[in-house]
């Protein structure tokens, strides 16, 4: 463990880069998915179409997707963020739409009958009630993206993957283990805290 303790700043930098990649991608994907999810929640055919496209993107292996972006935007963080954002869309759109669709119909009817405008109904009634499912989607997407972001290091985006790739090049097992384990811990941490948030939201919204 010698290397680890003498290179904490480098490791910390890698963690930070990783978090930035994940954070920015999820944030952008969330914004897009909110819009798409709201738009397709009540339109089954549009929903199927969006799910088909995002599902196809999700199936493509990350290295290949990043590679396909390189001719368009070069190396570095840009293709990484575009790719990671694209991967998150399927899960997020699906959960936003499902969450909205699961709001009990009598509540929607009561809100409409009481005189909520469409926008207010969404913001004050439907989205708050859909929140647990939406947060579940955020949780799954975040954990997934934390894993995929390791590949982004190969296209010069930095992050914990850089440690792993360095370990491969230098036949240095410690770097591989540290990179892999830290990524895993990050993912487990995100899963745990978002799980707790999800459970609290559910309890508060029980009918």
């Amino acid at each position: 463990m010698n290397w680890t303790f003498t290179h904490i700043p480098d490791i910390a930098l890698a963690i930070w880069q990783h978090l930035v990649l994940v954070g920015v991608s999820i944030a952008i994907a969330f914004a897009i998915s909110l819009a798409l999810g709201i738009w397709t929640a009540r339109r089954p055919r549009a929903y199927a179409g969006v799910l088909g496209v995002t599902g196809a993107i999700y199936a493509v292996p990350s290295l290949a997707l990043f590679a396909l972006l390189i001719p368009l935007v070069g190396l570095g963080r840009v293709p990484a963020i575009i790719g990671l954002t694209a991967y998150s869309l399927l899960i997020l759109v699906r959960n936003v739409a499902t969450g909205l669709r699961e709001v009990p119909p009598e509540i929607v009817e009561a809100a409409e009958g009481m005189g909520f405008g469409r926008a207010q109904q969404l913001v004050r009634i439907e989205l708050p009630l859909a929140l647990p499912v939406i947060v579940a989607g955020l949780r799954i997407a975040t954990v997934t993206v934390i894993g995929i972001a390791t590949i982004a290091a190969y296209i010069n985006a930095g992050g914990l993957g850089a440690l792993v790739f360095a370990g491969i090049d230098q036949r240095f097992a410690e770097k591989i283990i540290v990179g892999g384990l830290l990524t895993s811990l990050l993912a487990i941490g995100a899963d745990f805290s978002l799980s707790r948030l999800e459970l609290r939201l559910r309890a508060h919204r029980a009918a």
Partner: protein
Amino acid sequence: MIRLEAISKRFAPHLRPAVDDLSLDVPEGSICVLIGPSGCGKTTTMRMVNRLIEPTEGRIFVAGEDVMAMDPVALRRRIGYVIQQIGLFPHMSVADNVATVPRLLGWPRAKIETRIDELLHLVGLDPSALRARYPRELSGGQRQRVGVARALAADPPVMLMDEPFGAIDPITRTRLQNEFLKILREIRKTIIFVTHDIDEAIKMGDRIAILRDGRLVQYGTPDEILAQPADAFVEDFVGADRALKRLALVSVKDAMSADIGGEGGPEVAPDTTLRDALSLMLAKGARRARVIEGNGTQLGQLSLDAILARISDAGGPR
């Protein structure tokens, strides 16, 4: 107050209309009950008044204004709306639920707060105990009361109620019906009330509109409907015991004679319905009963003949 003129609703051109050429006039401050078998169009009709469903033909006027000329959202904020499953917002407290429409209308904070307490009192709930509770912590009856309070919050002149007491057990339902009628004596509202229960219609309605296959079959006071059903369908619908139902609309004090005396017949209170009085007299095998007030004084007598005369009386209850 509410006027429907030749209202029709077709959901698809090849199906029969859900509502067919319906015209109705609901006077201000009265309860109009829409009733009929499943699929008769009663709920569809009600929901056209606040434009949750748009009429295919005809016009609807609320307080003299054509609803089609108004912004639907603004219209709905002026109409109280209560549905069977209530639809309380689970993520909001009781107070926030009740405050919903006043907030949409932009009332000042202080006014909303007083209003919440006022309304919770009105529906028989203790504000200090229940304000901060959440719907999941309430019983069915309590939720229903909050639902009514929520509908009354912005003091709308008109209310639409779709089987509001339908999902409650019969004992609580009777109590809620009575309390609601009592509330209405204090505040004046024009109400359209949908139900499938003829007894509820007779109890709650000032006028009853019987619908069938989208058409209005009869519109009249409960006594008119019971005494003079328009056709075999209505006669069947109100039940074979309609004569007895009519008796439930009259109380003893309105049918008794003022003579004191009478030998040892059963005692009956002046507010008892003729129906209950008849039941008592039949049980005792008596032909007359003495009408006794709470403090023991006799007010008069009630005879079987007087009761029979009431049933064949074509006039309505006073």
